[in-house]
């Protein structure tokens, strides 16, 4: 039998919709991107935990970073963990001022909902964290969140 068909050249795949697809992806990423407002000057690897909750309103969160200064700042600030508020290294007694500023930037009715998120490195010591906690208590910023990442295995 002579059923062998002549080999058809495979039709070229239309790429005319490629830009549309790419644009769609592009818009997705553009919308979801949150540009970092602050440059991290400390190295932070947050601890892992299982019982974690999501922080709901990102606009109502103020961040306090605690960790060893990153490589660029090592020579100047040493390797002991330090506190970073906004863009600068800070000492614990600057925390109340920072919280007041954060509060002033929000609407009055939002102030009680403000949460402080402590992003501390897992190798940091509790001493510095405790200092921050005490300062937060002084200014009545009691809602606190210890930033941590998800751990799957349970003890």
């Amino acid at each position, binding site marked *: 039998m002579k059923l062998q068909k002549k080999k058809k050249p495979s039709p070229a795949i239309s790429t005319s919709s490629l830009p549309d697809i790419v644009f769609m992806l592009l818009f997705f*990423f553009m919308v979801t991107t949150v540009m970092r407002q602050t440059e991290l000057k400390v190295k932070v690897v947050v601890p892992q935990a299982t019982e*974690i909750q999501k922080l709901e309103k990102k606009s109502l969160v103020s961040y306090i970073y605690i960790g060893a200064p990153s490589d660029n700042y090592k020579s100047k600030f040493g390797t002991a963990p330090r506190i970073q508020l906004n863009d600068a290294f800070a000492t614990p007694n600057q925390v109340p001022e920072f919280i007041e500023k954060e509060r002033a930037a929000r609407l009055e009715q939002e102030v009680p909902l403000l949460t402080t998120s402590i992003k501390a490195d897992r190798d940091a*010591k509790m*001493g510095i964290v405790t200092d921050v906690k005490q300062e937060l208590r002084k200014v*009545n910023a009691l809602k606190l*969140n210890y930033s941590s990442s998800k751990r799957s295995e349970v003890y």
Partner: protein
Amino acid sequence: MPRKQGRGTPEVNAGSMADIAFLLLIFFLVTTTIDTDKGIAIRLPPMPEPNQPENNIKLKERNVLKVLVNAADQLLVDGKPMSIKELKKTTKDFIDNPSQDPTKAESPMKAVISLKNDRGTSYNLYIQVHNELKAAYNELREAKAQGEFGRAFDKLTESQQNEIKDYYRQVISEAEPEDIGGGN
């Protein structure tokens, strides 16, 4: 002047559009950090008023589970050294006290966990301890939800949830910081 006929605007070549879009896409892909803002939520106790008399509410010894963490990241739970792996089970046992042990809490409502750490304790261990204590409460609440309402805790109505939350009230009292020693 003679005009050429039939020459509309020439079509813009859209062939490089995909390339441009790709370029932008890659830029956003690289700069995006999908921030995972998750963590252990706690509520700090308010600062005691300076002129307020110290209120030493006496709690019965058996109702308090004392968790001490020293600077070498060792745990002492009610006077006994313990590894972090056992903490959850011990805590659950302490709160629920199914065997009516006279050294454990009278009832879950009266149970208080007292946590004290040194300034030299690592932050990681501190979080792990908090995590285990929270896990103990969450598991107990989940078990009660299943036993009483036959549904998962987060599927219950708010009043049912509050009922369980009142029963297993999470009371973690953190001691005022002080140096308990053991290196820095």
